């Protein structure tokens, strides 16, 4: 590449001189640009040459795109290109009609997010009202929540949790990125009643079931 051509990436990017590094950067850029969904480092690693330093490449790429119209962001446990937040006003044409969720549905979503894994009975206890089946259905339809397993208690109720799509939608890197999570935890508000301290829940959207969850049966499609 001659000196006259534009330099690929910004000034303080490491290893700019290395052709291999540049090649790898191009590859990461191409793969991430092509996907509309976040890709994990592991997924990227699978598709890059074995020698590629994925973390380092991502760091460089993020820096190269910082301040640009499109940014490389860490979201939902992976990496994705997203338009810069300050340019949202330009993109109203691309904006999707926000899903109209009832207040009940949004509240239920928040409870599932912060208290997961959580059963319907627990949601109802928190809201102080019974949950119509439609609320959970609507949330399942958004793809933001999922059935996780079954609580190992009488009746073996289904437990709910959030999905990676939820993280992507709300621009969260991971579930412990939820706004105000630490304060809520500190205030003991994520603990069951009564007695407080009976369980110390930290929301977990991981696939591993918790100690008191069983896997869903084959026939669970509630």
């Amino acid at each position: 590449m001659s000196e006259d051509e534009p330099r690929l990436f910004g000034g303080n990017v490491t290893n700019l001189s290395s052709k291999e590094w540049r090649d790898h950067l191009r590859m990461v850029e191409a793969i991430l640009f092509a996907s509309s969904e976040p890709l994990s480092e592991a997924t990227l690693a699978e598709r890059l040459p074995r020698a590629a330093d994925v973390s380092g490449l991502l760091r460089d790429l993020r820096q190269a795109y910082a301040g640009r119209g499109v940014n490389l962001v860490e979201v939902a446990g992976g990496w994705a290109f997203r338009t810069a937040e300050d340019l949202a006003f330009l993109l109203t044409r691309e904006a999707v009609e926000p899903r109209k969720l009832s207040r009940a549905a949004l509240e239920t979503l928040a409870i599932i997010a912060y208290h997961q894994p959580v059963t319907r009975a627990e949601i109802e206890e928190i809201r102080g009202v019974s949950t119509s089946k439609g609320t959970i259905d609507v949330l399942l339809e958004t793809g933001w929540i999922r059935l996780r397993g079954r609580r190992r208690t009488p009746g073996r109720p289904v437990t709910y949790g959030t999905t990676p799509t939820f993280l992507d939608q709300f621009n969260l890197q991971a579930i412990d990125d939820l706004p105000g999570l630490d304060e809520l935890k500190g205030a003991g508000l994520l603990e069951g009643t009564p007695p407080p301290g009976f369980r110390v829940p930290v929301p977990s959207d991981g696939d591993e079931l918790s100690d008191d969850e069983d896997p869903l049966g084959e026939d669970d499609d509630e």
Partner: protein
Amino acid sequence: MSEAEGDSFEAPVRAERTDADADALHVDIRGFEGPLDLLLALARSQKVDLTRISVSDLAEQYLAFIEEARRIRLELAADYLVMAAWLAYLKSRLLVPKPENDDEPTGEELAAELAFRLKRLEAMRKAAEDLTARPQLGRAVMARGAPEPIGVKRQTRWQATIYDLLSAYASQRQREMVTVVRMRRRVVWSLTDARQALERMVGRIVDWTPIDQLLLRYLSDPSERTTVLASTFSASLELVREGRLELRQTGAFAPIYVRTKSGDDGQE
């Protein structure tokens, strides 16, 4: 209890106690999602931090609200009445000092639990707001509008283990073995078998006896009938030839009668 499903995110118009009509409760529970929601609205009207609300006052307000609703014959869902009963109980517990040896929670504990639940509900409402205020995908930030799909070259990897292979082979050869064994078990009465059976009886058949009656015990299985009869008949012919049995048949397909040859001393 319905949740006013289909409401947009905008909170429904709800009963509020304003300072202007502090004493004139505007009774309308349509906007509320259950008693806890109503309590939270009442608590907010105390205009103090939820941690410092007077649960006793709150209970009072709630009960007054319910009383008013009843007076104007407003239909109340059972939940509201259950909560009213519970709050009345709570009030009584708050007034009465805790008796000794009482396992029931104290009024203070009940009040604390109610306050906790109200705080938690409020916190979750705030969390829902915080969530929706985040820069959401498709609104504040956009993904690539024309993602270039990853072409998938499908490739099937067939799976089978050596165990699969051997058990498939073995079980099918096993069928072959079972088939053969079954054929051996299907009794083909050999002449020897028939002769031995007849010999056991010879000497005891004094009168003409139908041959199939003799063989009754061997004819329990209908599938064996033919072979038994055929072999027995052959064997009986042999015994006749040896002068140990007599056979008689009155006509074609008529029953065959057999008896020990008279005057025979049983010696060959």
